[in-house]
């Protein structure tokens, strides 16, 4: 065969189920039971409202910097909602809604945002990793977990989250390549929110889609409308089922948008136009899902109001709970905990020195 195009076995597809007005393509209906649909709706509202509350706390100086998720609720919840509790979720740092869905308490998030190490504690009954701030690095941990699951002949799967920017990191490449080689039960969910701080998707990589990067690893890739929770759910369900059945990993690109700032330390007006933000606001995943649920008769103004009310009081309770907890926390000596299984002698000495220091008059105020 002197000169021929090469046939690539794996497929790369685009998927959307709800159009921008929330109208369903019946052929693709994932047929989600009503109670789950409403649970997803509540999760989206909670994610959105929690962002709002954290923003005001941050402005009041009652918490530190944090990364909002507004606009990405569908991309997060459509994906994690297909997992079982025994499956594993490996987040980056912008999956608040997904983490909450997976059982992380709002209190712990507030604690973390307030600079308490206790805030990233992971409860014993949750198969979630804590947030990973070094972009892309967590992808490899997800592959290791999936390898171990396979080794133990369990049928759990591991879902890893990361952003569009993360796809440029070497660890993303090495992780997906390992997953392909070992055919691990992995689902890689890329939250393509169009921006990596100030760097637009178009400058992050020249490939037309992020989904097609799957071809480099011999795995299927799918690009979904990430503001369409049914499409995300459908794609995630297929990928998770395939992984669970031993069919290997999948890369899912959720095309979505970060409607707010990168973190509260960021000013998006420096690098993107209001028009662009306005355009994407019209594709708001929450509005779209509301339309769909209303059409479907599952939602009405009263239900919307009561959901909001319930969510707001849940948030209020969490804020109160967290602020109460924080009064009990922050004793400096705790910083020596959990560095090693057992405190080595040199750290015992250092801790001892701090104990002596704290016992001195006027020292506590010296240490915020």
């Amino acid at each position, binding site marked *: 065969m002197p000169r021929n195009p090469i046939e690539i076995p794996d497929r790369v597809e685009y998927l959307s189920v709800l159009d921008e007005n929330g109208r369903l393509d019946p052929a693709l209906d994932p047929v989600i039971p009503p109670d789950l649909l409403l649970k997803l709706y509540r999760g989206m509202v909670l994610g959105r409202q929690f962002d709002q509350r954290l923003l005001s706390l941050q402005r009041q100086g009652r918490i530190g910097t944090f990364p909002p998720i507004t606009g990405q609720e569908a991309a997060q919840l459509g994906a994690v909602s297909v997992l079982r509790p025994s499956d594993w979720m490996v987040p980056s740092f912008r999956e608040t809604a997904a983490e909450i869905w997976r059982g992380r308490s709002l209190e712990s998030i507030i604690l973390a945002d307030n600079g308490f190490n206790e805030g990233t504690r992971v409860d014993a009954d949750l198969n979630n990793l804590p947030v990973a701030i*070094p972009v892309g690095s967590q992808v490899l941990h997800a592959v290791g977990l999936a390898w171990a699951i396979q080794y133990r002949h369990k049928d759990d799967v591991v879902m890893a989250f990361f952003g569009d920017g993360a796809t*440029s990191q070497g660890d993303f490449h090495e992780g997906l390549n390992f997953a392909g080689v070992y055919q691990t039960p992995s689902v890689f969910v890329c939250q393509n929110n169009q921006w990596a701080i*100030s*760097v637009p998707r178009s400058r992050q990589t020249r490939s037309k889609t992020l989904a097609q990067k799957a071809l480099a690893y011999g795995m299927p890739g799918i690009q979904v409308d990430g503001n369409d929770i049914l499409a995300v759910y459908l794609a995630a369900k297929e990928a998770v089922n395939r992984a669970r059945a031993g069919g290997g990993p999948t890369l899912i690109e959720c095309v979505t948008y970060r409607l707010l700032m990168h973190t509260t330390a*960021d000013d998006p007006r420096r690098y993107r136009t209001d028009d662009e933000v306005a355009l994407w606001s019209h594709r708001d995943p929450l509005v779209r899902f509301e339309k769909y649920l209303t059409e479907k008769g599952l939602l009405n103004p009263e239900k919307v109001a009561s959901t909001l009310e319930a969510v707001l009081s849940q948030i209020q309770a969490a804020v109160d709970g967290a602020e109460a907890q924080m009064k009990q*926390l922050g004793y400096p000596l705790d910083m*020596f905990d959990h*560095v090693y299984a057992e405190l080595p002698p040199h750290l015992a000495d250092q801790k001892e020195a701090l104990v002596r220091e704290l016992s001195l008059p006027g020292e506590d105020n010296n240490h915020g």
Partner: protein
Amino acid sequence: MAKMTMVQALNLALKQEMEKDDRVIVLGEDVGLDGGVFRVTEGLFQQFGETRVVDTPLAESGIVGMSIGMAVYGLRPVCEIQFSGFDYHNFHQIENHAARLRWRSQGRFSVPMVLRAPYGGGVRALEHHSESREVFWAHIPGIKMVIPSGPRNARALLVSAIRDPDPVIFYEPKALYRAFREEVPEAQEALPIGRSQVVREGKDLTLIAYGAMMRPALAAADELMEKHGISAELIDILTISPLDDTLFVQSVKKTGHAMIIHEAPRSFGPGAEVSARLVEKAFFYLEAPVARVAGFDIPIPYFSRENAYLPSVSRIVRGARELLSTSLN
């Protein structure tokens, strides 16, 4: 002369070097339109355009590896790693190549690049945003490691780093980015790399510090004098590697007492080398052990406990008084 923050002073250094020398290229994550997350590259994109102020994809090894190639070609890349906590991603590119290409090619090539990164605690940031790990770089032969302590020396040292024929890791104490202003002359100023400075003269004790720790050290020196009548000499190392031991050795020969202060973890930290040099070069003048006031050997805690981790004025003062009391005479 204008009063400037360290951010403004660093920005001035970059701006003036770029105006003088079209080999100077700034690259990194968000250094363009956004002006860098700390605004150190503010306005450079507008003035010099995207061919000289280059936003990169999110990949530290890529940024540094590409900078090495640019430098080998004869350019003077100044790359920014957004936080020092992420420059381990490019550790192999520096150790395996930036530090060795001159040597490997036996002088044919060189890597006149600068790697800028904000380091250190004190800004209530997230995990990985408050580290102080300068030893990783100081222990690598073939590169230089510089840490300024104020707007004026930050500007003058960055100019030297850009002009230096060898790779320079330039750590910026983010806690000082906007902490205070100094007079910074419009006319270009360069401070030689590889030279420490005596910042305050004294006779009883030598305090050795650098970067963000210079401020508590200075405050401690004041308090030691005012409250305890102890006269402390203060030395700013400025260049971590190659380490200039002449001034602190000289000083300790005079004072007989030495304390090194850093936020980096204590064990195998910069203080260990300072202590070892003092023992090698001023042993018979030392009247007491060399004291280390340093970070604990743990990851720096999230910000609610950060202050208890970082060396404080009172910790320095107390250590200094103990030091003088343990002395032979």
